[in-house]
């Protein structure tokens, strides 16, 4: 066993008498003392890790070439863990203030009494030990965090015909948000995203324990649902008692899990969810579907725990987006659509940079994107920036919605020209107002789903060269002759349907489907068509 060395003080004083007197007292108190007569000599001892041989610096203030304050300044740069005490015959208030502000743990006036010396040294040494423990703990935590990331099996994804992006922004070095990737003998890809309650080391331990158990059971061919149920049983029945025995604060520890099982031969996808935010399925055309309808408990709350399961057959170009509630919370605080935030983070990940937007997060953020590449490798899929559903009562909030669309676009596409943003915002506003006013009006028929609503999808396509907007409602569309109205509105200054005219004229292309109940608008982000006076109205429609 490594023996602890005696506590050691480095004393700096140009006065030989003072050095001798204080050294004797310190040794009587049990300290080893190394005394030097100038800051320069002290620095020679402290550089290159030498500071770790000392537990306190005890420095005189006024010396011929440099002062004790210079020593403090140097220590702040060289080793912030080594505490110091300043001693001086001059106890001016300003000097005391400067010393303490400069990082000294104490200031003593000469002559120093034994009691004062004892207390000051004790305080300084404790401070050094505490700071060094903190540094060591942080270093270990960072190593645990790195291990946690390496254990997730993400490297397995490299050889798969899938495009997988993982964005992880933990609040601390190690925590409870993590992922696990496996390939089963049945050629199933298992992508498991988990979020343990809390952000501390206990969360990291639960997460690591779950990963290990998961790996062993998957390798043994155990069905995923049974593995999750077993872990639920363990958390509910055993973990709380174990934690209490270990002196942890009592309380429930829960684990929210989203498990995607993807058969790479059949493209059958099954999503098991236990208290996790619903994942999103972004289709090739930029539309988004929420993969889940019924909520579920996280593991660790109740037993039995009925897991929610949805099944899909994935198509080429499909992208699953799974994120922890940290991303959803940040989107709310930024007032942006979560998909636009996801896009920003994925772009940053691809560029190998840390997105500055996450500095505002108050929770861990974990985002996983899994996509089946399109058969045509040259085809860049659409990515949804905004995918929202509105009800008739949301019409009163149209300005707030518009602000949110604008925030989302500016976050996702910071380089986008302001004019394009304005074009998109105007058309979204007009189309959503039309959908809510007419498509979802009292007189419109109630749809089979029983809910009158409007859907807005804004997607970015082809390396950000196009923005695709789709606005649809549950109504039957319209039957009037838009072209005739457009002419009348323009030439005879008829007020009606001016919004529809904007929708058909401002985008580069507008396609009306389902009698206008569904509008698809395309905006080029480059080479916008400039308006020329007297341009003829040109409407495109598909019934």
């Amino acid at each position, binding site marked *: 066993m490594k023996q602890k060395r005696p506590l050691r003080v480095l004393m700096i004083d140009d006065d030989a008498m003072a050095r001798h007197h204080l050294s004797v007292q310190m040794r009587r108190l049990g300290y080893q003392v190394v005394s030097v007569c100038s800051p320069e000599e002290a620095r020679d001892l402290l550089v290159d890790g030498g500071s770790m041989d000392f537990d306190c610096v005890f420095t005189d203030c006024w010396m011929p070439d440099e002062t004790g304050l210079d020593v403090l300044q140097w220590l702040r740069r060289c080793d912030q863990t080594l505490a110091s005490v300043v001693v001086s015959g001059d106890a001016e208030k300003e000097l005391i203030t400067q010393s303490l502000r400069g990082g000294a743990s104490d200031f003593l006036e000469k002559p120093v009494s034994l009691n004062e010396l004892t207390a000051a040294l004790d305080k300084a040494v404790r401070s050094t030990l505490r700071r060094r423990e903190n540094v060591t703990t942080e270093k270990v935590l960072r190593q645990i965090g790195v291990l946690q990331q390496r254990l997730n099996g993400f490297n397995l994804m490299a050889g798969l015909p899938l495009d997988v992006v993982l964005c992880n922004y933990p609040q601390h070095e190690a925590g409870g948000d993590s992922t696990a990737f496996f390939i089963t003998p049945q050629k199933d890809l298992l992508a498991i995203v988990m979020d343990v309650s809390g952000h501390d080391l206990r969360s990291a331990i639960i997460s690591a324990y779950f990963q290990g158990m998961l790996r062993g059971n998957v390798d043994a061919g155990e069905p995923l649902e049974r593995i999750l149920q077993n872990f639920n049983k363990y958390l509910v029945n055993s973990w709380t008692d174990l934690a209490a025995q270990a002196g942890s604060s009592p309380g429930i520890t829960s684990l929210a899990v989203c498990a995607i099982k993807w058969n790479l031969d059949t493209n059958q996808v099954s999503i098991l969810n236990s208290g996790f935010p619903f994942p999103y399925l972004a289709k090739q055309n930029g539309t988004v579907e929420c993969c889940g309808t019924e909520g579920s408990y996280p593991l660790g709350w109740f037993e039995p725990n009925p897991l929610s399961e949805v099944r899909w057959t994935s198509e080429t170009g499909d992208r699953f987006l799974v994120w922890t509630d940290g991303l959803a919370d940040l989107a709310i605080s930024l007032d942006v659509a979560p998909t636009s935030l996801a896009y920003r983070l994925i772009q940053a990940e691809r560029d190998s940079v840390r997105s500055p937007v996450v500095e505002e997060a108050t929770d861990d953020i974990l985002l996983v994107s899994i996509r089946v590449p399109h058969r045509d490798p040259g085809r860049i899929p659409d990515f949804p920036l905004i995918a929202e559903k509105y009800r008739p009562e949301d019409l009163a909030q149209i300005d707030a919605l518009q602000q949110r669309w604008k925030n989302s676009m500016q976050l996702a596409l910071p380089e986008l020209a302001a004019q394009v943003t304005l074009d998109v915002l105007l058309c979204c506003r007009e189309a959503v107002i039309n959908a809510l006013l007419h498509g979802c009006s009292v007189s419109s028929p109630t749809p089979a789903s029983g809910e009158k609503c409007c859907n807005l999808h804004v997607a970015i396509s082809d390396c950000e060269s196009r923005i695709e907007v789709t606005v649809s409602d549950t109504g039957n569309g319209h039957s009037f002759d838009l072209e005739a109205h457009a002419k009348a509105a*323009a*030439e005879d*200054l008829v*007020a009606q349907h*001016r919004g529809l*005219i904007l929708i058909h004229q401002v985008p580069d292309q507008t396609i009306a489907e389902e009698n206008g109940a569904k509008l698809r608008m395309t905006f080029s982000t480059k080479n916008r068509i*400039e*308006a020329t*006076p007297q341009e003829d*109205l040109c409407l495109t429609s598909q019934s």
Partner: protein
Amino acid sequence: MPHQPILITSPGDLLSTSTEAFRLRAEASLESGAQFQENNVEIDLRMANMVDSVGLNAIVAIIRKAKAAGRKIRITVTNQHLYRVLVFTRIDRQAEILLDKAQAQL
């Protein structure tokens, strides 16, 4: 005052939720200038980035009244987006549109 344009200024965007005050102010301005038949109307949209269909209808209402009184109308805008909207909706056929090249603020 004769030969002074009747100036109608929008302090910001003209949207369905904010156009009413502009419409009332415009009507008051047109009323107050009614005695000077020869005065033209100038709609200043330089502080607007966006005008939606309700805002456009308010502008159309001003144009109608002004035209009925035999006045000419000029609309000043600062950004290309708004210029495009006024052209696409053929308001440029009813009023002179002046594109001020100052940078629009989004």
